[in-house]
């Protein structure tokens, strides 16, 4: 479990993370979202004891990172920028890390096999592809069979098969009761892997919720698709109520600014038959764009959020 409480980090004048509080619970995969520069990596570095917070705390399993006597058994992490010496072989990299915790070579071989690097384990890391580097990073994070796993952009550079492998691996870890916390900018991937979300923008918390709730909230302003044989009459009535209506094909309307209930009631009142009334769902990506853009931090005032509709 990761508990972040009123966490603030300043680098000189710049505030990277401000008064951030959230909890990452065991047993589920929690996604960490935010636009570039939102403070995701800083937050992870603070959790992992690499940077010291200006104020506030980040606890892992109830302790500050540097107070954990055997951190690799408590929390395994992979940071986005590969934290690996390029001149060393994958196997020696893992052996050196394992040695700090008295973890034997058997476990090193186990994680090498687990991530599928058996063929290249004696090659220098500098010769690795991005995907192989990711696999090695994941192997390092699993060395101590930790209770919590933190991964920064784990699917970056992986092929579709690798992505599916990571997805299943992380689900499996969560199912074992482990805490899994990962960041990704691939929203579609996040929608598939994560159940909960922590969303930050400009160093502040925007949302700490389930993926469903997050999408639902963002979908509040999403359009409703309406089919009616008297579409034009309905359109006129809706527009009198200041709804934003678009005709999409014969007898079909796309209504923004009204809920399905309001539209149904209005149609009943006017005796207009409805053949279809479908609220449109938006993707996590759209929800993310919607919420980060409409949050005060990100309001540029330029354009109205344009929602891509997923039927």
């Amino acid at each position, binding site marked *: *479990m990761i508990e972040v409480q009123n966490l603030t980090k300043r680098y000189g004048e710049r505030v990277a993370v401000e008064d951030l509080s959230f909890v990452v*619970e*065991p*047993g*589920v995969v929690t996604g960490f979202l935010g636009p570039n520069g939102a403070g995701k990596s800083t937050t992870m*570095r603070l959790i*992992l*004891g*690499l*940077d*010291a917070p200006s104020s506030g705390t980040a606890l892992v399993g109830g302790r500050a*990172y*540097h107070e*954990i*006597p*055997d*951190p*690799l*058994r408590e929390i395994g*992490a992979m*940071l986005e*920028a*590969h*934290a*690996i*010496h*390029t*001149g*060393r*072989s994958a196997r*020696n*990299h893992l*052996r*050196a*890390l*394992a*040695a*700090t*915790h*008295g973890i034997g070579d058997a476990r090193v071989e186990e994680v090498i096999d687990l991530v599928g690097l058996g063929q290249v384990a004696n090659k*220098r890391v500098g010769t690795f592809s991005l995907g192989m580097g990711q696999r090695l990073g994941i192997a*390092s994070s699993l060395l101590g069979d930790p*209770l919590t796993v933190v991964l920064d952009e784990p699917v970056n550079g992986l092929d579709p098969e690798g992505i599916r492998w990571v997805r299943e691996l992380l689900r499996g870890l969560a199912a074992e*009761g*482990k*805490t899994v916390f990962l960041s990704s900018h691939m929203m579609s991937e996040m929608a598939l892997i994560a*159940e*909960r979300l922590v969303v930050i923008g400009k160093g502040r918390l925007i949302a700490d*919720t*389930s993926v*469903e*709730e997050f999408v639902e909230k963002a979908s509040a302003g999403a359009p409703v698709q309406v089919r009616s044989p008297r579409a034009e009459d309905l359109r006129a009535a809706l527009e009198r109520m200041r709804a934003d209506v678009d005709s999409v094909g014969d007898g079909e309307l796309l209504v923004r600014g009204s809920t399905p209930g309001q539209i149904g009631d209005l149609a009943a009142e006017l005796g207009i038959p409805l053949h279809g009334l479908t609220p449109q769902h938006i993707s996590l990506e759209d929800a993310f764009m919607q919420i980060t853009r409409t949050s005060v931090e990100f309001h540029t005032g330029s354009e109205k959020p344009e929602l891509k509709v997923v039927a």
Partner: protein
Amino acid sequence: MSAIAARTRIPVRSRTPDPVTQSRVFRSEWIKLWSLRSTRWSLSLGLLGLLLGIPNAAFDMSRWYSLPLQTRLHYKSVDNALIGWHFSELAIGVLGVLVISGEYSTGMIRSTFMAVPRRLPVLWAKVVGFALVVLVLSIPLTFIDFFGSSAVMAQHHVNPSLSTPGALRAVLGIPLFLTVLAVFAVGLGALLRNTAAGIGTFAGIIFVIPGFVGVLSTSLKNAINPYLPSNAASAFFTVTRDPADHLLHPWVGFAVFCGYAAVLLAAAAVLLVRRDV
């Protein structure tokens, strides 16, 4: 899954801590030291440089009668036999800086500090590991070089032996100097965290500053010169001493040099714990 269900805690298994210890960190650093090809090569070449006294002696012997009479009469047999330390000094300085700056340049330091969040055990392990390798390898190499050079010098009967005044101190002093130099260099690398800056500063301290001091007024020069790290160190193992150099007493020189290394290492240790990585 609903938010309520997601928040339901699944009990995590309890675990008995199996802590990171200094000896485990030492083992880890030992693996790191020997698993880089660049380390193996530069360490081997650097320490084999200690044997350069032998070809140097052979060269002197081959042109013996063309050497000035004063040189031949006062032949610095011990110092010339051990001349290879100049080469090893540079190699060990560079490698010592790299032992830690290489981790910063590749990002490895983050993995290292995630595994050892108290950080200081890493610094101690790097310092002790590297210094130990330098000590253990340089002692036999210095002896081999000494006896090899001595055998070559025998053809003109200027060969030193361990009973030559100051010879034993020099033969043991050079490995000791290189060992402390290893500490000095690792400290410098940890302090500067950057390979180019570390090597540049090392070269500046050892090779450039003495040149600058050389152009100062005589009184100022004589006051500063003996205390420069390079001169304090060479006072320790130089046998033929030129009074004009104002070298410190050998053991005082060694103590001063150890002091520099200790100050660097202490500063590095303080900052290592405080700084973000």
